């Protein structure tokens, strides 16, 4: 057990004049307690107005991404005591429009995602009564790509996104490459179309914040590199 002070960045849209402010909550935290557990405990026992998204509690739904001690993480996967500090600051992820307290708007995330036509594009019809064949090696190319939980931690941490609110974003690049790399997909031109744009790939300066931020240990930067090469190939080849 340890007494931890949570410094939570709060914001109520109905009270614009007050704007953002920091509120502190002290909580006795035991081994195994995650930041999400702590936030729930605060909400249920101290202040019901504290607002944050959450659902699965197990790091798979992507709801609870927030900035904890200056870094984007999933609250439900972050052990409080592992942060090794008596003070824990919790803020909404930066870069997205604020909705309330720790809740941000996902609109930029979805807009970026839709831009890359995030679905399998095929032209030849699939065999009837049978799956398309895909070798384990071809399938392995999707590892590290399809696991994205759309939490938005990557894009929020990217300085290019801070500078351009319409930046399509590493999460969407990763998704685009998930399809471009799929042996079954026949629409790489369609996936890539929106990327050769001023809000697209060329705004990525290989800063790697996205990689550092990704709670699923995915590597959007690698996907971005592959996409850049693919685009160059299409343009000059």
């Amino acid at each position, binding site marked *: 057990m340890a007494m931890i002070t949570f410094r939570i960045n709060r914001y109520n849209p109905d009270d614009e004049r007050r704007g953002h402010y920091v509120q502190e909550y002290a909580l006795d935290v035991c081994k195994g307690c995650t930041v999400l*557990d702590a936030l729930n405990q605060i909400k*249920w026992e101290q202040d019901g107005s504290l607002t944050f998204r959450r*659902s699965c509690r*197990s790091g798979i739904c992507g709801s609870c991404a927030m900035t904890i001690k200056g870094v984007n993480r999933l609250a439900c*996967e972050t052990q409080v005591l592992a942060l090794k500090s008596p003070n824990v600051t919790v803020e909404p992820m930066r870069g997205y429009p604020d909705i309330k307290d720790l809740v941000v708007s996902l609109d930029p995330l979805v807009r970026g995602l839709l831009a890359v036509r995030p679905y399998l594009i095929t032209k030849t019809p699939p065999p009837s009564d049978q799956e398309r064949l895909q070798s384990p090696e071809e399938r392995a190319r999707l590892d590290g790509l399809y696991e994205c939980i759309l939490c938005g931690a990557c894009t929020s941490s990217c300085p290019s996104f801070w500078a351009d609110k319409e930046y399509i974003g590493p999460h969407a690049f990763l998704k685009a490459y998930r399809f471009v790399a799929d042996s079954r997909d026949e629409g790489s031109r369609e996936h890539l179309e929106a990327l050769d744009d001023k809000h697209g790939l060329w705004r990525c300066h290989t800063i790697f914040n996205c990689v550092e931020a990704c709670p699923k240990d995915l590597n959007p930067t690698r996907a971005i590199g592959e996409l850049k090469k693919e685009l160059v190939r299409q343009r000059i080849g």
Partner: protein
Amino acid sequence: MTNFDPESIHDVKGVPVHSVHRHDVVIVGAGLAGMRAAVEASAEFDVAVLSKVFPTRSHSGGAQGGIAASLANEEEDHWEWHMFDTVKGSDYLGDQDAIEIMVKEAPVVVREFEHMGCPFSRTREGRIAQRKFGGHTKDFGKGGPILRACYAADRTGHALLHTLYEVCVHNRVRFYPEFFALSLIVRDGVCRGLVAWDVIGGGVHVFHAKAVLFGTGGYGQVYRITSNALANSGDGLSLSLRAGLPLEDMEFVQFHPTGLYQSGILVSEAARGEGGYLTNDKGERFMERYAPQKMELAPRDLVSRSIQTEINEGRGIGGGPYVHCDLRHLGADKIMKLLPQIHELAWKFLHVDCIKEPIPIQPTAHYSMGGIPVDIDCRVLIDGKSKPVAGFYAAGECACVSVHGGNRLGTNSLLEASLFGRRAGKAIVRFLRETRDFPELPSDAADAAIAEVERVLSAGGSESVGAIRTELKDKMSAGCGIFRDGGKLEKLAGELRGLEKRFRNIKIDDRSEKFNYDLLEAIELGHMFDFVELIVAGALKRQESRGAHSRTDFPDRDDEKWLRHTLAWKRGEKVEFDYKPVTITRFQPKTRTY
């Protein structure tokens, strides 16, 4: 019936009605069931999908193991075998006509997922890979375990869910993400739409539809220890009850043996499959006492009961409510190669390194076999038996067709959700082809919902929602968990009534309209009170032990009296029951031994 006019009720009680939306089909729930139906119906009609969480945050994404289908990609398999296993697993309470449809169509549904782009793991030949799962066997139970569960590594649910979302995006399904359904509009046996709350912006929205589908998922959150998401509060069940419709077989709740201590987060069956031990406070492998042959690999309900017995008899670790799942003897190599996810989970959520320490585990509420009674085309039945509500459908975990009967087999529920979601979609398309006009929307359509929101937002009592919910969960775990008996259930029913009284006197900290989870958690708790009563009353009535329902005072299965489905309504303060026979076609009930 005068027609609905948003202006006339605007600001009736201070809660504004923002707009009326019209769609041919309105689907509540963006899990496998909801989105699979949306994919089907959107080919021809205008489909809207509401979900209280962003679609890809639905709980289906949490499923790890796999989706069952007798593809026979890895070894010989037949739908008859799959059917036998499902019937036996259900402890013969499953309706065999529905099960037959499910096992026969399963390969089609799984292959369609592949065609949509789902990144299934593959065999050497490039086909969808399959693995073993508890309860799935060869040759009508005579052979050993069979490779039947199709999977995408240990992220099957995630892969399926995202694939469906992607196809919905492609089909231009209209999403209303973070819209919370408040009430269902059913009048004169016709469903006319529903009322929902816009979580982000605040405000009531009315959805006018020719057909409504519920794919609202499970309700694990009524238990203290559960593998379910915080959003799994069973709203759909309550909305359906409040519209005067029954629920079926609610007493059947599945407990998974291995949830992480305290959080209940699922430790997959693979932990035991790869050779993990279960040990008690004395360090004994206690499964020796309960299943000397199969040991840790006995079926889920049996292992759960064994663990609970150890805990109840004081042999939990340090006398506490948990035992150990010990993997240390497997060695670091094997753990990191075969069970990396489990290693990660134990580390991230308990701060336990399972290479060096045993993992504290306890049984965890996992799945609800019961739900909204529907026929094989997912039409919701007004009488629970044969009379459908025009235009109202349900599929997935919130529905009860019933393919799982008294106990569900692993990997059968992803199958059920997507397969019956698809069937529902097809049925809706047929229905809409014949239905030209929108049903009339009654003028008081939104009144109940507005009143509810208003009541909570102005609640000036003294009781905390969080505290009451915690008590409800504790009491459900203690009184209506793995083991039940008449005395405890009756006591629990009384306690729940007391809690519900206190619930009427809640206070609320957040009175704003925008993104108010304080409000929604209170509404969810109200929903829970509606249907937990049926779980408890149903469990009290059913004087036998079958599948997941285990009465210590009636330890045997009683086919004579209880080979039938429970139907329950809520009429005022009272719960009313009716029963219907189980459909038996191919397999006559036999004693269930493994």
